[in-house]
């Protein structure tokens, strides 16, 4: 059933691998794609990944720096895979503990890991257990809960509550006559982690309701922090503490007449991180303490809030923190390092890694390459309204002219009033700064415009043809600003890009944007992918981050944008004059982000 299973070190050496019967393709490609898309881009929060027709699941072992990857066909839904990877990991660690503890590439190269038999055994067990679990029989009526209720409790009255428990909804309840077997059912504990409001209060007296609520309150406060459901998505586990307050018993919902004195909150449960008497904290100092999820949780929460305060989009911050947690789980800390410092260092490294470009960014070299091929280098600017496309286009043309290239500006913004005139003014100014006499008689900047109201894609195509004829080096295409939700405009943009095939598609985004950045980029990319006819659609290739001088150190937008697209930030706009164009310094931005 499995296509392949590999165990390899983080340094890249494969310790053991298994290839399923009948599978001919090598798994190196998919696993490399997994490493590059997920682990290196800090998306290790969820542990599965789809590559073409295969689904890959993986587990990181941070103590011995190993990675376990399993791959199977997408169409199969194998339920045992998660537990299977865990079992394999434990077995491998137990069996080769002595060798792995030595740590070092020499150990990996010299040992051969004969894991085949153990692997087959665990696989057989996993497959059998999944088969036995799937046969569940339906319950007979006598076994169900409904048979235990009385008829009277299930009667709905006007304005009253329903006979069943409602999970997570708050609605007013009214009191009813209590039938005898009620308390037995009502004391069934609510499923953990859900905000259930026990509306099954049919017919309890006021005092009994208050008593019940009191018990719930106590229970919630003693068992609260550990009641996180593991299987649910990360978003749902963010149980807002505010809601808990509103659900607290004694507030006006149920007891308007009685003033309820809440019992004093019970003492907090003893901290279990210490581990036995006084030696626990020493162990934390001396090293050889491995990090667990509980240790990192408070630090990560704080870091997440810090990032959100610095204008990183909320879901990006949470995904980043999950990814860092996965990377550090089980890792053994060095001497005299605290959990907080390890987590901070790991987060800092991840942020620097995200901001480093994944491919070479050298526009001048690419323009030279296009020059040698006798075709113009086409750059398209897109973005929402008012982010600074035209201003930054002018800055970039100034930069290109300073480096000795000739530029043609294509005015494909045929909608906004004054757009063409604005570009014409820029053209005149730039030509005044670099007069044609100094550049062999030909003006360095020219504007190609066809007025207002025409089709932008057509103008772009004509502009590129004109540039090719007149041997211009670069064509800068300015488009109209559009909201990401505006479907017809997004279609028009996608058509412009698909038809003209520019060399570089730059998304212009302002640094002031917060959570909106995620939405904008996702929808822009989606539109470009949907409306392209070819198999490999042209997506956003780079980001221009504008208005960087208006934010002091709330530089989170840079992280949000790079994380979502995976594309580098090519330019940073730091002002409104021609000289205010910079490139991104990853270390400085991360320093500003992590500063308290």
């Amino acid at each position, binding site marked *: 059933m499995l296509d392949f299973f*590999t165990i*390899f*070190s*983080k*340094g*890249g*050496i*494969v310790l053991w*691998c298994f290839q399923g019967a009948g599978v001919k393709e090598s798994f*190196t490609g998919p*696993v*490399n794609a997994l*490493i*590059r898309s997920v*682990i*290196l881009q800090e998306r290790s929060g969820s542990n599965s990944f789809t590559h073409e027709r295969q689904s890959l699941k993986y587990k990181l072992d941070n103590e011995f*720096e190993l990675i376990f990857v399993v791959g199977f066909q997408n169409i199969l839904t194998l339920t045992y895979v998660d537990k299977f990877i865990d079992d394999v990991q434990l077995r491998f660690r137990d069996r080769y503990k002595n060798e792995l503890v030595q740590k*070092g*590439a*020499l150990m*990996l*190269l*010299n040992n051969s890991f004969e894991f085949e038999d153990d692997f087959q055994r665990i696989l057989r067990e996993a497959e059998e257990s999944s088969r036995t679990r799937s046969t569940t029989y339906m319950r007979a009526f006598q076994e169900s809960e409904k048979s235990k209720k009385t008829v009277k409790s299930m009667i709905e009255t006007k304005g009253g509550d329903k006979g069943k428990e409602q999970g997570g909804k708050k609605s007013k309840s009214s009191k009813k006559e209590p039938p005898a077997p009620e308390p037995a059912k009502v004391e069934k504990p609510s499923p953990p982690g859900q905000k259930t409001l026990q509306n099954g209060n049919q017919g309890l007296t006021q005092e009994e309701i208050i008593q019940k609520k009191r018990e719930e309150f106590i229970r919630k406060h003693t068992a609260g922090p550990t009641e996180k459901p593991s299987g649910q998505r990360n978003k749902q586990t963010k149980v807002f503490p505010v809601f808990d307050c509103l659900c607290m018993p004694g507030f006006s919902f149920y007891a308007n007449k009685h003033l309820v004195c809440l019992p004093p909150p019970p003492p907090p449960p003893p901290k279990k991180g210490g581990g036995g008497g006084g030696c626990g904290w020493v162990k934390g100092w001396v090293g050889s303490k491995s990090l667990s999820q509980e240790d990192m949780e408070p630090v990560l929460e704080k870091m997440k809030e810090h990032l959100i305060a610095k204008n990183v989009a909320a879901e990006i911050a949470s995904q980043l923190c999950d990814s860092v947690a996965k990377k550090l789980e089980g890792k053994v800390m060095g001497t005299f390092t605290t959990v907080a410092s390890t987590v901070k260092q790991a987060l800092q*490294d991840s942020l*620097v*890694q*995200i901001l*480093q*470009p*994944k*491919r*070479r960014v*050298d526009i001048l*070299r690419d323009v*030279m*390459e296009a020059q040698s091929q006798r075709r113009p280098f086409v750059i398209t600017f897109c973005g929402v309204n008012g982010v600074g496309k035209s201003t930054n286009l002018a800055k970039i043309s100034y930069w290109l002219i300073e480096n000795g290239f000739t530029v043609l500006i294509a005015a494909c913004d045929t909608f906004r009033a004054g757009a063409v005139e604005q570009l014409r003014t820029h053209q005149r100014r730039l030509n005044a700064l670099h007069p044609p006499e100094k550049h062999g008689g030909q003006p360095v900047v020219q504007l190609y415009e066809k007025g207002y109201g025409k089709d932008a894609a057509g103008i772009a195509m004509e502009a590129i043809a004109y540039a090719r004829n007149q041997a211009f080096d670069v064509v800068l295409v300015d488009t109209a600003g559009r909201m990401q939700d505006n479907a017809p405009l997004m279609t028009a943009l996608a058509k412009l890009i698909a038809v003209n095939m520019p060399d570089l598609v730059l998304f212009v985004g302002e640094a002031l944007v917060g959570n909106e950045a995620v939405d904008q980029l996702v929808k822009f990319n989606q539109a470009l992918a949907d409306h392209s006819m070819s198999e490999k659609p042209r997506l956003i290739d780079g980001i221009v981050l504008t208005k960087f001088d208006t934010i002091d150190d709330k530089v989170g937008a840079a992280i949000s944008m790079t994380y979502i697209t995976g594309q580098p930030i090519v330019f940073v706009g730091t002002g409104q004059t021609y000289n205010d164009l910079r490139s991104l310094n990853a270390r400085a931005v991360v320093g500003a982000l992590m500063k308290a």
Partner: protein
Amino acid sequence: MDERSVGGDMGGKEDAKMLENTVKQFIEYVRKQVEEQDPVFLISVVVALAAIIITCVFLKYFLTSKTVRSAVLLVGLCDSGKTLLFSRLVSGKFKRTQTSITDSSAPYKAKSDKGTTWTLIDLPGHDSLRAQYLEKFKSAARAIVFVVDSAIFQKEVRDVAEFLYVLLTDSVICRNTPTLLVACNKQDITMAKSAKLIQQQLEKEFVFLGKKGKDFEFSQLPMRVEFLECSALSNKAEEGEADIKSLEKSLAKL
């Protein structure tokens, strides 16, 4: 003192005597102080002085030992064959490899008469990791082996040139001038370019990157640069010897 005692000047004689007395008194005073003092105090002063001297010696020793460079770095673009080359050099075995996300290091004994042992360090080639690992290890580098995929070199020539340019213009590397060995890997593939061709292509690219307009040659650099061919994967795939003899010879010459 003799002249003074010989001199018949009455005042001079008195002065001399006074001087002698004061000196004698001073010596007496010091001797008394030393004898009166607690021996423990004296010993503690001596021990403190000795500790300071020893610390100074140790510090000097440790600080100088840091600048001893004994690492050979394996760098290059992603998928150029660094990890397999690392495995071959250290143990001679073939191992399947995946994209590295951390560095690996192992001792390597050079095949020369002296048999010096270097630390061979394999750095990840992925763009987002390259910079931070290079930062970490560049000061300890005695030699850098830059691995190039000779088969797809034509497509990647600009990326290779940019990485090599960044490497050569780094301040720490310019200061230490480690030997640069450009290993043109994957020679077992038929389409692989020769080392000479790769050298010429890189020199042409450097003209663009340097923006000086003059022709560039690797011999102009202050460090020793050598281009060689190798193949980490032999013709028979997993078994068989890899063709890394020229690389081993160059490493022996370090």
